[in-house]
């Protein structure tokens, strides 16, 4: 599987489009405005430009989604010198499992979330970019588009900040997109510079023209249609987007809500921008996080404003041009331009917003190009065409309302994203013009809509009709043209071979199927034609009980419940030091986003696993309180798997929910931990019963301790085993060395600690006499220091107390009860067993001892012992037994291990040894 991937990877050739558009001299970074992806055996190339949504190679054959912010070359000239900065999106399955339920609903399969964790690494290797993808922004409560458009566009509704889902802030999205320092001026071969500036303006200008086809809307953003040649329209559009956002970002991040900008501010900001780029990544991201906050608050205000502002916009276009250049030459900016720029930003927001209406269509149209599988193109094309039409027509005003609500900027980007991968699409001028008209109509609508929003609730209905009815008509009239243009596009597009994408996806599907296949195949072997289907999605569960459990009724029952090992105590007493050490270790690793190993040893029942769980609980709590970056915790146990290699399978399943064979899982994990994935949160892995992961080559252990040493892995491994010197005893050097020297050993509990543990568990439930507690803890401390034992004895003592208190007694567990419990658990049954044995068995034991004495050895054959046995029988005045009976007696004693015997096929010659000391036997028999 993975080999297949690498081969594919090699086939893609990445090259910059044009020369560097901007050079950061300090860092020697050269910024580009486009990346060309060329696939071997295919003459067509795909272009990716900042602002596009892209798919990035991820681990385990799933790709990541992100928005490209900038592209640069770090100047080292190596293969991996191409870098890209991105705004991440996460898919649902990338959200840590324990937090998934916070979404509160089932995720849409194509849903992504804006990733807003501040310190995530947004710098990636540009050569990991696979292709572009469409991402649509939807309002939080709007439904997902109909199923036919689902295939390949992704939807954003919410953002994920590591703790909770929240509605995507439009401005935030815009702003993070507007970050790049990429200059506005285009160096694209085909495009003249002014083009895009004017195109900026059109979006603003268009409101004056009412009816336009929706599909052409996006081209209206590059409004150049009236004045320039149109064949190159697409690229210009592409470039324009980041520029616009750039401008927005500038104004936005500087401007505190409601305040005016001074020139100095802007300069500072611009300089800052450069500096920031040249400084560490972390700083950039942090600053961005800061910057993003103020931006969110004014987001509503401009919308209100823009209505009154709209008339001015026409005149703004020229300014706009200057602004676009102005970013390159920051100092030249004039204060009044800045003011205008803020206005511009608003209008921009406006113009982008109105595009939202066409989003379903966009999804539809672009489907062909983003669809993963490789079906015959024809087949795909026909229904699409019709569906475009029907959808247009079928739209009701209310539906429109929904779609308009959708924040727009995403949409433009989607549009761009949809186009860039393929070659430049040639569209006829006529349709262009139409599209411009439609877009202006849309803008008009949008304005009206916003107006309406401002107005009070009761006139909503009226407004709706006023606004939307004409539009509907327009749409109908334009739908024909639109479909024409769509077909035109599709035609040109269908000529584009989409090999890179489809071949990419095809292998990626197979692994998901394989685990399913195996069980599915099994029943088909059975001759019965209709065997019940294999429970592929069987949920592991024990049926629930019909009657509820009874609650503890009295003090003793309460105490027993609290003393059960399984009950989770409020705190873990007596392990404060160990807790602190582990806590500090894990916390520091999580904070730094690094990895490490820790080895924890201690005899069973000393609270190793419990302490680690407690640490994790506290850390999770801290993460929720925002004191710590969130992390994911997974746990494997050497005893809970059938073979050491299953560790991989379990880790993979817990990390990603995937099922795979051990080898495949190992490969996937290896890939996951060795490829950089900046937004990955730290993984804390608890490996319990480490010694059972031992294999002859020790590769499981090796991997477990090797992954944390990788920079990108962000893996913290806590390994638990019983023996302190396990690394020295069973590990080969290279494993032991990777485990490192961070070790901790849990000492067995002392009696005081045990006493404290019981007291804290009982927590003021008075069920024990103090002496009784002390007896238990001293006894256990002397024997093993195992807290489980201690609790079990106490629990048994409460039971004994309960039995006896039915007859008499105070109800408190006293010394006598504890003594009885201790006796039950620790007294050896041998002596009682001998006393309870039958006469013949006792005589046989005597005969064994007699024979041992005679031989002077601790071993005799059955034949020898049996002779003694017959003699003893005669002495005791019993009728002698026959050989068969004697052998049965002997074997019976052997079965309960009073004697140790060889296997019985040796018959007369089987060797007999005592499993108890001779003194014990004699003592037991004398008493009896």
């Amino acid at each position: 599987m993975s080999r297949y991937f690498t081969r594919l990877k090699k086939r893609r050739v990445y090259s910059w489009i044009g020369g560097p558009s901007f050079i950061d001299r300090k860092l020697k970074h050269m910024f580009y405005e486009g990346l060309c992806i060329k696939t071997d055996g295919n003459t067509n190339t795909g272009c990716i430009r900042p602002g596009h949504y892209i798919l990035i190679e991820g681990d385990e054959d799933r790709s990541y989604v992100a928005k490209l912010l900038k592209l640069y070359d770090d100047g080292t000239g190596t293969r991996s010198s191409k870098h890209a900065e991105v705004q991440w999106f996460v898919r649902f399955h990338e959200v840590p499992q324990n937090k998934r339920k916070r979404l509160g609903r089932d995720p849409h399969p194509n849903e992504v979330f804006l990733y807003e964790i501040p310190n995530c690494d947004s710098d990636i290797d540009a050569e990991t970019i696979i292709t572009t993808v469409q991402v649509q922004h939807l309002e939080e409560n709007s439904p997902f588009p109909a199923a036919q458009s689902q295939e390949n566009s992704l939807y954003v509704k919410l953002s994920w900040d590591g703790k909770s889902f929240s509605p995507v802030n439009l401005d935030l999205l815009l702003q993070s997109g507007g970050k790049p320092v990429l200059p506005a001026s285009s160096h694209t071969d085909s495009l003249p510079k002014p083009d895009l500036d004017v195109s900026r303006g059109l979006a603003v200008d268009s409101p004056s023209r009412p009816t336009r086809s929706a599909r052409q809307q996006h081209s209206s953003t590059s409004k150049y249609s009236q004045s320039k040649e149109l064949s190159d329209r697409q690229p210009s559009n592409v470039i324009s987007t980041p520029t616009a956002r750039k401008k927005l970002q500038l104004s936005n991040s500087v401007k505190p809500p409601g305040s005016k900008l001074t020139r100095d501010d802007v300069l500072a900001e611009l300089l800052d921008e450069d500096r920031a780029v040249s400084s560490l990544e972390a700083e950039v991201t942090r600053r961005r996080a800061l910057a993003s906050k103020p931006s969110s608050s004014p987001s509503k205000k401009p919308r209100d404003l823009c209505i009154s502002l709209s008339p001015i916009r026409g005149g703004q276009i020229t300014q706009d041009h200057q602004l676009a250049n102005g970013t390159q030459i920051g100092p030249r900016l004039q204060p009044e331009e800045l003011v205008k720029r803020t206005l511009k930003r608003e209008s921009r927001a406006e113009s982008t917003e109105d595009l939202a209406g066409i989003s379903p269509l966009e999804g539809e149209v672009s489907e062909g190009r983003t669809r993963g599988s490789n079906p015959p193109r024809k087949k795909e094309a026909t229904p699409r065409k019709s569906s475009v039409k029907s959808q247009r027509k079928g739209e009701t005003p209310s539906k429109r309302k929904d779609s308009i609500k959708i924040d727009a900027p995403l949409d433009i980007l989607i549009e761009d994203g949809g186009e860039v991968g393929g070659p430049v699409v040639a569209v006829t001028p006529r349709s262009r013009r139409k599209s411009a008209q439609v877009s202006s109509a849309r803008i008009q609508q949008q304005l009206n809509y916003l107006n309406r929003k401002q107005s009070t609730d009761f006139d909503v209905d009226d407004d709706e009709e006023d606004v939307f009815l004409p539009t509907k008509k327009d749409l109908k009239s334009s739908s024909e043209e639109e479909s024409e243009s769509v077909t035109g596009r599709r035609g040109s597009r269908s000529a584009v071979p989409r090999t890179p994408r489809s071949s990419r996806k095809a292998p990626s599907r197979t692994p998901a199927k394989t685990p399913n296949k195996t069980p599915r195949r099994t029943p088909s072997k059975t001759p019965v034609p209709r065997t019940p289907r294999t429970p592929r999605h069987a949920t592991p569960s024990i049926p629930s009980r019909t009657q509820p459990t009874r609650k503890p009724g009295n003090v003793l029952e309460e105490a027993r419940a609290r003393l059960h090992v399984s009950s989770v105590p409020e705190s873990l007493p007596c392990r404060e030091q160990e807790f602190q050490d582990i806590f500090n270790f894990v916390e520091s690793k999580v904070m730094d986003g690094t990895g490490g190993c820790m080895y924890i040893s201690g005899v069973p029942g000393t609270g190793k696993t419990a302490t680690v769980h407690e640490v994790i609980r506290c850390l999770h709590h801290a993460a929720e309180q925002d004191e710590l970056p969130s992390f994911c915790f997974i746990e494997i146990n050497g005893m809970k798997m059938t073979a050491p290699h299953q560790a991989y399978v379990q880790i993979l399943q817990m990390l990603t929910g995937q099922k795979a064979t051990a080898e495949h899982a190992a490969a996937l994990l290896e890939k996951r931990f060795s490829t950089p994935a900046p937004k990955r949160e730290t993984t804390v892995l608890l490996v319990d019963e480490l010694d059972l992961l031992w294999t002859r080559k020790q590769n499981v252990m090796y991997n477990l301790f090797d992954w944390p040493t990788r920079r990108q892995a962000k893996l913290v491994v806590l390994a638990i085993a019983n023996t302190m010197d396990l690394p020295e005893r069973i590990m080969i050097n290279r494993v032991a060395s990777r485990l490192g020297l961070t070790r901790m050993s849990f000492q067995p509990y002392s009696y005081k600690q045990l006493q404290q543990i019981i007291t804290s568990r009982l927590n003021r439930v008075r069920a024990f006499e103090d002496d009784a507690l002390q007896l238990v803890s001293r006894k256990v401390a002397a024997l093993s220091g195992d807290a489980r034992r201690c609790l079990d004895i106490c629990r048994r003592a409460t039971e004994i107390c309960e039995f006896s208190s039915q007859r008499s007694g105070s109800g408190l567990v006293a010394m006598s009860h504890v003594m009885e419990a201790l006796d039950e658990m620790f007294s050896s049954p041998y002596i009682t067993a001998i006393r309870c044995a039958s006469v013949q068995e006792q005589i046989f034991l005597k005969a064994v001892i007699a024979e041992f004495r005679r031989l002077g050895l601790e071993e005799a054959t059955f034949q020898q012992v049996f002779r003694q046995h017959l003699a003893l029988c005669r002495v005791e005045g019993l009728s002698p037994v026959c050989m068969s009976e004697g052998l049965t007696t002997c074997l019976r004693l052997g079965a309960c291990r009073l004697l140790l015997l060889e296997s019985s096929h040796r018959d007369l010659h089987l060797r007999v040894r005592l499993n108890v000391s001779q003194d014990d036997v004699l003592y037991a028999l004398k008493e009896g």
Partner: protein
Amino acid sequence: MSKRKSKENCLTHGECISQAQRMLRERFCHQKIPGKPFGVESQHKHLLELLKRTAVHGESNSVLIVGPRGAGKTMLLNCVLNELLEVKHVQENVLQVQLNGLLQTDDRIALKEITRQLHLENVVGDKVFGSFAENLAFLLEALKKGDRSSSRPVVFILDEFDLFAHHKNQTLLYNLFDVSQSAQTPVAVIGLTCRLDVLELLEKRVKSRFSHRQIHLLSSFRFKQYLEIFKMQLSLPEDFTDRRFAEEWNQNIKSLCEDRSVEDVLQKHFCSSKDFRSLHMLLMLALSRVTVSHPAIKPTDLLEASRLCTMDSKANILHGLSVLELCLIIAMKHLSDIYDGEPFNFQMVHNEFQKFIQRKSHSVHNFEKPVVIKAFEHLHQLELIKPMEGPSVRTQKEYQLVKLLLDNSQIMDALQKYPQCPTDVKQWATSAFG
């Protein structure tokens, strides 16, 4: 008394007998004991309380029932479970999983069996799908999902518990005990074993998770109680279909207990073992002698049954040997005596036999060597002699070292009883040296 009965009465009488026999046979073979097991009240109470807490309170527990074979461990457990399941809401709640170390010889099989008995969702019909690892993960996940208050408690019964301790890594035991010690589905793990040292078999981690509750069943009753048990086992219940027959039968059993010879037989049995199974064996043999013409167990039946029970199997085999084979046995006995139990080969035996033929024998023919070899091989097949080396070692048949699996006393006994044994053979056997 049956002779006086009329024809149709006799028929019903025969039916009564067969019914009584069926009932008693069921008791002896399936360990179905009327009433509570005898003399283990405290253990019974302990186990019952423990299972009740699991069933009612959802408390997880683990316990081992330890006692020699035939001490009534399974009997006790079944009795407790029956009693527990009489309570309706317990019956609805509790799930049972029965495993036996002799059947589930490794964890793979055991896991499938558990999954099957729990009817988890990866079971279709009687088949459990998925690999070993998947099954384990699935089962653990299932148990983990449950919690004390909402899931049905599961009672795991592990018969021949000690054999589970020999499974690789003791994975199954670790997991079961781990579940019993953590807040998951409530489970009660009950192990039945005859090994007193069973705790030493457990690995330290497994041991730490085991609650160390042990119920010892060591059959500490005396002969008087043994007699009681005997009576109880043979008596027919009150609600037997033909009351008159039952009364007669029970009366007979009562008189049987007072019989001197019966008491002797029982005393002998009691001395040799207190195990219920051997008692059942004895009673079974006696019961099978009951027919329409012989409608009650008589003391002679018991005596005969006891004789059968305590018969020496090898002595019986000796009775069926030919004189030649017997001679060879005697030759081997002498060799064993001379060389003090050291092994010997056919050639030595043949020499010894030749000496006997030439010097002392008057009645025994001198057999050809091949005939003697044949006889020797027959003895081998009867396992009265045992080769020292395995079959892989290639030595000539005549020189293969063997050992005699008979004691002198057995040989002498057999000779005494052997029909028409030639006197010179007898003399040869008793003589100190061949």
